[in-house]
């Protein structure tokens, strides 16, 4: 029994020993790995897609890693190695200091500022620019950080823009796309000549907001209102005029119609009279003597109305005949 126990104990101990050995070797492996990892990270660094790098040794710039598409350090530096590319790079640990700069475009946005055009009109403009670090060496030496660079640009871009706008008339500045573009490009060129020294490049500048000062805004509203009032008045006056014209035209037409009718009716009446006269003449002309007798009788009859007073001379033929009969011989 005890022998068996011993055998079991021995095997267990041996197993324990083996496990201890593997444990140790795994720990060693892990330690080695960690050391390797530390060594790896101490001797390497990565340059991201949007980055460029400056490596200094004891404060002296030794090497730069750049993107050839945007690099603008025309004259290569004598003591500086220029490397193109991105990704994994090596360095001497503890000695090489790695500094990363962005290579992508930064957006600079200005405050709203007052500008004068050549004809003394005032506008508030806001503008933005796209700039980037085209030469990390100069940039590092001159500005160091993008915050400082932004400040620097603020003090530089505005005067240049304002100066270029000062030379434009208000109409050109506001409405002429090409004139403004030319002014902006010329401002951009002059700024670029200056900022190149600090490793900066302006890619594009735009005035994205132009608005009137508040006081002018008020007066503009007033002018717009006055202008519309004028138009409203014109429309109303025009309406009145048209109405009057239509009324008088209608009146004229009415009177013309009536006048024509008067003329026509007179003609008709005249024709009637003429025909009647012709009829009379034709008939009465047969015996004008009898006609005058007959017509006189008619006139007589017509002129004595009922209730008239009649006075006849005794010598009137009527009596004469009658009396002649009554007293035939006197």
């Amino acid at each position, binding site marked *: 029994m005890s022998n068996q126990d011993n055998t079991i104990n021995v095997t267990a101990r041996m197993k324990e020993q083996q496990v201890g050995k593997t444990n140790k070797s795994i720990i060693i492996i892990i330690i080695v790995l960690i050391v390797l990892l530390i060594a790896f990270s101490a001797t390497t660094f990565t*340059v991201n897609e949007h980055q460029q790098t400056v490596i200094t040794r004891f404060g002296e710039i030794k090497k730069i890693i750049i993107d050839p598409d945007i690099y603008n350090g025309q004259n290569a530096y004598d003591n500086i190695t220029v490397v193109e590319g991105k990704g994994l790079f090596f360095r001497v640990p503890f000695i090489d200091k790695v500094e990363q700069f962005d290579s992508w475009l930064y957006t600079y946005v200005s405050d709203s500022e007052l500008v004068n055009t050549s004809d003394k009109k005032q506008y508030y403009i806001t503008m933005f620019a796209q700039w980037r670090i085209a030469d990390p060496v100069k940039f590092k030496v001159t500005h160091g950080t993008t915050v400082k660079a932004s400040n620097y640009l603020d003090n530089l871009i505005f005067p240049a823009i304002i100066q270029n706008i000062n030379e434009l008339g208000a109409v050109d500045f506001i409405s002429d*796309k090409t004139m403004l573009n030319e002014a902006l490009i010329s401002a951009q060129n002059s700024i670029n000549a200056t900022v190149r020294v600090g490793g900066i490049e302006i890619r594009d500048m735009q005035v994205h907001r132009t608005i009137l000062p508040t006081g002018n805004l008020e007066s503009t509203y007033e002018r717009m209102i006055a202008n519309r009032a004028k138009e409203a008045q014109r*429309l109303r006056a025009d309406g009145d005029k048209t109405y009057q014209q239509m009324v008088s035209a209608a009146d004229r037409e009415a009177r013309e119609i009536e006048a024509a009718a008067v003329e026509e009716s007179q003609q008709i009446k005249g024709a009637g009279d003429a025909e009647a006269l012709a009829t009379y003449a034709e008939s009465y002309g047969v015996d004008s003597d009898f006609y005058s007798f007959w017509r006189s009788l008619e006139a007589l009859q017509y002129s004595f109305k009922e209730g008239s007073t009649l006075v006849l001379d005794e010598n009137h033929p009527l009596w004469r005949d009658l009396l002649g009969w009554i007293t035939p011989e006197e």
Partner: protein
Amino acid sequence: MVGVLVGIVLIVALFSFYRVKEGENAIILTFGEVTDTKVTAGLYWHLPIIQTVKVQSTTEIYTFEYGYRTTQTGTTTSAAQYNDVDEEAIMLTGDSNIVRVEAIYQVMVNDVEKFFYEVDDPFGTLRYAFETVMRRNIQNKTLDVALLKKQSIELEVYPDFKSLIEDVYNIGIDIKEVKIQNIVVPPEVSAAYEDVNNAKNEQTRKLDEGERYGNEVVPSSEAKAYKMIQDAEAYKAETIANANGEVAVFNAVYEKYVLSPEITRKRLFIETIEDIMANADQKYIVSSGSDVLEFLPLETQDTTTIRGGDTGE
């Protein structure tokens, strides 16, 4: 122990699988550098730690609002709510007037690498660029054109904006659409604009009134004229008929007269006198001598005798 290690490695390897969905592009960065691009959908694997993956949709449409913001999107039970953004919306026109512009633009990412690495803030750049283009295309219009030609302004803004973003900035963004929602006058002056509309309506009303007046006056005159002519025609017919009638009477009398002129003449005369006398109230026969003969009072009761020169009894 080894098993644990292997397990860890396996788990890490398993979590290093990634999916690119339909309509997405992925860029693979090895030590920060773009080394690969996946443009087709599928399951891919990348090296853990060393490689990272950035996935971006290239089919999603991003809509940006200009001049206003939707604060609450509409639902089936409530209307959408908007806030005006005055500093964006208020614009100058070429003739120094002010308009309010509200617009949207829609974009898609078409180049993932450029989208991520060309500028620090691609959508911010987009906003400034749009404002630049939008304002320039309003500033070279007169107020009237700006208010009325929304569509043609849209057609100018779109290519300007597209070429600025795609050619100048080249930030991997594709401009799909520019839509101007509204170009209106500011509320400060809208009353005056409404008054012009009122004036236009009044003008139209005046025109209608004028037309109505004409429609009233002319037909009335036409009626008058018609009556006048009818009257004249009636007069004509009457006159002629009278003439014919009189002539007929005359002719009839004349026919008799011709048979015995002397007698007829007398008869006619006496008949006429008879008529007259029958009608007369007072009748006197005056002697041309000194005496006045009294005539028999035939009808009147008070008969007066008048003697020449002597009045009374």
